[in-house]
């Protein structure tokens, strides 16, 4: 693979531009689709340039979510549900993982390694695998159709605990020694030294976990039977329904655009943290 500059340089640009275009293609269509009338799309001859219905469609989707042929929930409410769910999952995972990693890294107590392995093994039990029995537990605890039911079962995190433990192992012993000599207790050391030192890792992890939470599908599908608790990702699939040609595709596409806007914005604007988080959580 020559790294020299020269005439061979058109190839990478050609391939990458083609890639970018192919990757953006579905989004471009969704954007265009969300600016036309349902009837224009139903003819199958939707123009490839924006139509004039953009504000109408988005306003309609946000406030009622229901067209002539689709019955949905107002997208505004769905977006709020998704936001609450994603935030609880991201913040919750970080909070409980950072304290358990702190316990494992800075204390010596009976059962320390046992508990560490107990958390570690959950890596091998993704929610999709134990879906039916977990659903039963949530039903028995009367947590169906609540934010607690949507989020708490997903909040335990072996990955985040492992990551914070790695970070804590790089904190020099001298720092803890100095804190002890100054008379700082374990919690004071945590708040004043450990937490500030983990700032960048927390930011990186937050980006990844926010996207993870926002994009959940199978779990909210089971837990939300009440339409007012649905998330945007569930809402859009319910709108598609049987996907007939004669449906309000303009509203569906407006909803799709609204559904991907928050996580995509997080990735694009917090790119640095996103890449850092992705590489750290997986390695």
């Amino acid at each position: 693979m020559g790294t020299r500059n020269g005439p061979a340089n058109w190839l990478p640009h050609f391939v990458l531009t083609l890639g970018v275009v192919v990757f953006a293609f579905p989004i471009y269509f969704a954007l265009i689709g969300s600016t036309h009338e349902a009837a224009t799309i139903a003819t199958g001859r939707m123009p490839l340039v924006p139509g004039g219905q953009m504000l109408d469609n988005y306003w309609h989707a946000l406030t009622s979510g229901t067209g002539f042929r689709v019955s949905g929930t107002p997208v505004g409410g769905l977006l709020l549900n998704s936001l609450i769910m994603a935030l609880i999952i991201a913040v919750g995972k970080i909070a409980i993982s950072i304290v358990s990693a702190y316990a494992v890294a800075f204390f010596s107590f009976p059962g320390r390694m046992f508990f560490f392995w107990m958390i570690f093994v959950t890596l091998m039990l993704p929610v999709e695998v134990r879906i039916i029995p977990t659903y039963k537990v949530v039903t028995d605890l009367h947590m169906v159709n609540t934010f607690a039911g949507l989020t708490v079962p997903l909040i335990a995190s072996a990955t985040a605990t492992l990551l914070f433990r790695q970070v804590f192992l790089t904190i020099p012993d001298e720092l803890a020694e100095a804190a002890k000599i100054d008379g700082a207790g374990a919690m004071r050391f945590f708040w004043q030294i450990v937490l500030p030192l983990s700032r960048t890792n927390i930011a990186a992890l937050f980006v990844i976990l926010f996207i993870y939470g926002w994009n959940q599908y199978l779990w909210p599908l089971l837990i939300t039977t009440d339409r007012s608790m649905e998330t945007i990702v569930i809402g859009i699939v319910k709108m598609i329904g049987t996907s007939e040609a004669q449906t309000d595709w303009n509203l569906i596409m407006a909803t799709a655009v609204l559904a991907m806007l928050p996580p995509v914005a997080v990735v694009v604007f917090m790119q640095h943290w996103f890449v850092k988080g992705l590489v750290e959580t997986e390695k």
Partner: protein
Amino acid sequence: MRRRVIFPNKLLPYLLLTPQLVITVVFFYWPAVQAVYYSVLLQDPFGLRTSFIWLENFQTILTDPLYLGSVEVTIVFSTAVAALAMGVALLFAVMADRKIRGKHVYRTLLMWPYAVAPAVAASLWLFIFHPEIGFLGRWLNEMGMRWDYKLNGNQALLLVVLAASWKQVSYNFLFFLAGLQAIPKSVVEAASMDAGPGRTFWSIIFPLLSPTTFFLLVVNVVYAFFDTFGVIHAITGGGPAKATETLIYKVYVDGVMNLDLGGSSAQSVILMAVVITLTAVQFRFIERKVHY
């Protein structure tokens, strides 16, 4: 690894561990034990009578042609998704690793599909490949190819593979790019002195990338197994005629729709065994650092 300096508190570490452990026990271990327990029971749909039947559920599943069909679908689907998503990503990464202008712009523009939920990705691809109103779906029909993913099982499988791979390419791309950038430039330059670009790639760069490739292979298979439920649920609902019913989709159908607790639990137990094997294999190889 142990620290020299530790805090003397006796109770505090347990308190700090409590939230994580409670959630882990209630929502991970307890359900996992339940899955194993239900998998050896036969329960009538109303939950009135249960009888212990040992491994009969597993026997029923493993001889059920529908289950074996779903195994086949899963193998074809995950192989296709992993091959497509990794192949395309590797091509982009190799191109973006060259000294070209604007590589950061390309990186940003290839990265964002990662953030799109699988089910939302499905709705976008549905809009393009819908046989009547979709831009490409309609075009295929006008070209005389009978395109209808609601009737043709192979076309349905192709569409879910496309939608599922599309968003996974971003992830693979970032890891391949990081892997390529970690290879010393001197090695590549030395090799390209006496070999053409093709040979340099296959005999030097590709082998050096093998830890990344192997890691991504496991991640992609796990993704195709479990995270693509939304894509399939949104586009095909497992149809037509179960042509896109993967193992995880079948657990959902049998457990939630057909209320076959024993059967779906046995399937969950089998899937757990698959995940445990994949994770174990991954850790074993990462420890050994797949390398030439």
